């Protein structure tokens, strides 16, 4: 028989044992294809030119993440497959086949697997794509008309990247087989025979793991003004190492201690499933750790999405505090603008106040050097303006040596609150006791970046000394009245002036601008990523446990022969598998909490509800996969016809 025919024969006959590999590969391809499809569809182009930079960056990040995902998934899946096939096709050594030939056999078989998976992945991917587009349309409120369609380029890209990586791993397997000794091949089955790990080794690993994790959590929540990014990176690395050590050290240690407590152990099915769990743990702890880390990543991705969205909405609200704002040297600016506005629309609220240039440098000349500029507002003025806008000004009047800085939000600031530097205004040094993020003066606050609130007395004192005053005037139009926004803006443009004697500036915020559409796209992508990673980690767990169940068949056949009832064994299997899902879930729950906490700190958003919801989704997913695993394993181990 030629190699190809033999391989095809093998493939056909043990299709069932290939199935888990094929399905998981197909799933990966499906996900990858769907992403590619979105990227190559025109949806992002529609989002507008202004967002292009962000979107390109987004796409790149997604691609890198996905390629990594594909790479590791393929690595993992082919490795599992190789070990299994090695001992099955290792038999051919006795039929006088050379390692090279057996390697070629493997190569051909795995090619069949790959091609089947690719065909299935793209086939289902196309189907799923339609479904996903509907979901995406539902979860995100993209203002653009979403028409994805199926892009040929996506199919090409997916196939090429998959095949390249797949070939690499197939060749790696081939190389591995040609280089393995006869004994190694036949004994691949016996590799399960683990060595009992010395408790002291486990203890060391456990201590190290806990230390690393605690350090990771510490860095994740360390509030530092400048190194937040470094801290976050450090935290990520530490948590990953820590999780591995936890599954390789602490958890087996705890279980081993439990096993040595016979009083605990000899208690119904415990004797069986706790021992089984330890056995599995030693073989599978990398899988558990991987699943756990994937879970943490996905929850964090989701939290990021929500935080960004949240932050963005705050930003929009910040900017939209007023529709029109004026800063002028003319004292009659309020009257002028009111006259222009009159009859054109309804004003929701308005306010006007004075700002003092204490350093007596005119705005005009120093505009380029904003740091030197200080525009001072009196406490009672700002309270008045806040009241007019219907927001509370929850700060007490500053002391005479204090100022409050009117700051603004930014989308991605990694700076956590810290002590602000003192400011010197007109020769006097003030302590900056508040950085106010509330848009009391709306967009102007962000645009000028040099607004300070001082006490009324201090304001009067400084006013005595110089008389350079600017007048600020704010209007918020009723939202449903802004159909003639452009018209009003044009009218206001006539009073804008930039001369020595008349400086008048206008700020206008178009309430219907869709500059931030990309953030909504990012938000939906984050949700999608989250779902993908959670489903993927569930799949990995399922695949691993399903694969393992084949090694258990004999064990359970013995147990059945010994007369243990199906119910007893079913319960034991259920316990064991539930534990297998529960362990990563528990570690994930704790780690994700810290990760989300630090994200929330970094982005100044309250993400606790996101955390709760995402963990609820994760737990539902895991529960589903767990039930599936239990059902399938019970079927293979207890109710299969051919393992009496």
């Amino acid at each position, binding site marked *: 028989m030629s190699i190809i025919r033999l391989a095809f024969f093998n493939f056909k006959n043990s299709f069932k044992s290939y199935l888990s590999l094929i399905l998981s590969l197909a799933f990966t391809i499906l996900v990858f294809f769907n992403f590619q499809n979105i990227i190559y569809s025109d949806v992002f182009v529609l989002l507008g030119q202004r967002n292009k930079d962000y979107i390109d960056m987004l796409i790149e990040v997604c691609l890198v993440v996905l390629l990594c995902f594909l790479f590791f998934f393929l690595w993992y899946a082919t490795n599992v497959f190789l070990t299994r096939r090695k001992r099955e096709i290792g038999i051919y050594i006795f039929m006088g086949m050379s390692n090279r030939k057996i390697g070629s056999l493997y190569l051909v078989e795995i090619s069949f697997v790959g091609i089947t998976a690719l065909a299935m992945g793209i086939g289902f991917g196309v189907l799923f794509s339609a479904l996903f587009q509907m979901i995406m349309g539902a979860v995100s409120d993209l203002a653009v008309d979403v028409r994805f369609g199926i892009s040929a380029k996506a199919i090409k890209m997916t196939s090429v990247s998959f095949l390249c990586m797949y070939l690499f791993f197939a060749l790696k397997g081939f190389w591995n087989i040609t280089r393995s000794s006869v004994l190694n091949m036949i004994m691949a089955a016996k590799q399960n025979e683990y060595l009992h790990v010395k408790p002291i080794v486990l203890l060391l690993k456990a201590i190290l793991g806990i230390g690393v994790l605690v350090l990771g959590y510490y860095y994740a929540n360390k509030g530092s003004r400048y190194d937040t990014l470094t801290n976050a990176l450090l935290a990520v690395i530490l948590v990953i190492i820590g999780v591995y050590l936890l599954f390789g050290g602490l958890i087996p240690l705890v279980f081993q201690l439990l096993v040595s407590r016979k009083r605990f152990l*000899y*208690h119904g099915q415990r004797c069986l499933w706790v021992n089984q769990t330890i056995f599995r743990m030693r073989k599978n702890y990398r899988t558990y750790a991987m699943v756990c880390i994937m879970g943490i990543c996905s929850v964090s991705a989701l939290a990021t999405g929500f935080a960004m969205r949240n932050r963005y909405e705050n930003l929009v609200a910040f900017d939209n505090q007023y529709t029109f704002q004026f800063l002028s040297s003319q004292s009659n600016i309020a009257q002028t603008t009111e006259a222009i506005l009159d009859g054109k629309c309804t004003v929701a609220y308005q306010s006007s106040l004075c700002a003092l240039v204490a350093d007596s440098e005119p705005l005009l000349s120093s505009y380029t050097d904003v740091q030197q500029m200080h525009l001072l507002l009196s406490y009672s003025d700002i309270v008045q303006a806040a009241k007019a806008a219907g927001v509370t000004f929850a700060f007490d009047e500053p002391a005479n040596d204090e100022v409050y800085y009117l700051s603004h939000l930014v989308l991605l600031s990694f700076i956590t609150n810290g002590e602000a530097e003192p400011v010197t205004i007109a020769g006097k040094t003030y302590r900056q006791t508040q950085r106010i993020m509330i848009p009391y003066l709306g967009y102007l606050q962000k645009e000028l970046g040099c607004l300070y609130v001082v006490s009324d007395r201090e304001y009067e004192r400084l006013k005595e000394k110089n008389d350079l005053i600017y007048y600020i005037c704010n209007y918020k139009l009723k939202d449903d009245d802004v159909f003639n926004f452009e018209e009003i803006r044009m009218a206001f443009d006539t009073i804008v002036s930039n001369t020595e004697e008349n400086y008048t500036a206008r700020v206008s915020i178009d309430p219907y601008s869709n500059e931030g559409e990309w953030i909504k796209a990012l938000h939906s992508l984050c949700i999608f990523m989250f779902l993908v990673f959670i489903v993927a980690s569930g799949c990995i767990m399922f695949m691993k446990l399903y694969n393992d169940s084949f090694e258990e068949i004999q064990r359970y056949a013995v147990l059945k*022969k*010994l*007369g243990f009832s199906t119910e007893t064994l079913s319960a034991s299997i259920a316990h064991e598998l539930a534990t297998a899902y529960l362990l990563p879930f528990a570690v994930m729950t704790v780690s994700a909490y810290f990760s989300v906490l630090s994200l929330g700190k970094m982005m100044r958003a309250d993400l606790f509800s996101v955390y709760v919801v995402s963990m609820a989704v994760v737990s539902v997913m895991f529960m589903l996969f767990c039930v599936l695993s239990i059902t399938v394993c019970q079927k293979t181990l207890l109710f299969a016809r051919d393992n009496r």
Partner: protein
Amino acid sequence: MNDKKVVEIKNLVKHYGARDFQTTALKGIDLTIYKGDFIAIMGPSGSGKTTLLNILSTIDKPSQGMVMLDGQDVTRISNKALAKLRKDKIGFIFQDYNLLDTMTLQDNIALPLALDGSAPKEILARTKELAAMFGLEAQLRQYPYQLSGGQKQRGAVCRALITNPEIIFADEPTGALDSKAGKDLLQCLCKVNENGQATILMVTHDPHCASYAKDVYLLSDGTIKCRINRGNDRKEFYNRIIDLQTSIGGDFA
């Protein structure tokens, strides 16, 4: 001798295969095992030994005939009751030990009682007691892969005995052991039998192995050809078995 019947089979017939290609593995077997017996069933390959043992141990069902186990007709009770019967009344010893490689010897021995829900304290005591009897105290904390074949098989015997079963079925228990380990194991079995702790039914093709039993039945072509009793001298018993074997002929394996 105690005359409580542990096993009673009458006119046991077992067919294999569909109507047209039927082979008859057992052709009407009658056998009664009393409490305290140690019976060896010998026979050439294909004579139906494994089939008989499978039916006795309720893993397989007879085509015809009656099998009474501890007063219950195994052909008439539900699967659930069968499993319970198997768990409570029967102990098994397999040729390839069948210890679970995921747990220590101690846990392996304790498993049947633990799954049965006995008190941990009691299980622990019983495990220790049995291990002491079979010289396995030092091996209790080890995993099966760290043990020799003989130790593993003795461990399997402990596991079979821990529930105090009515009868122990052993299928070629020495099949995978070297002669020294086999001899040790058989001596152990003899000892527990003589102490009145176990009734044993053993299937074997090895006359030496069979000579440890009190009675030997010769099975050939699906029927029991004859039965011989050991008496007092094992050497002499062994010779009688050999003689019988040659007179019946066939391929003993």
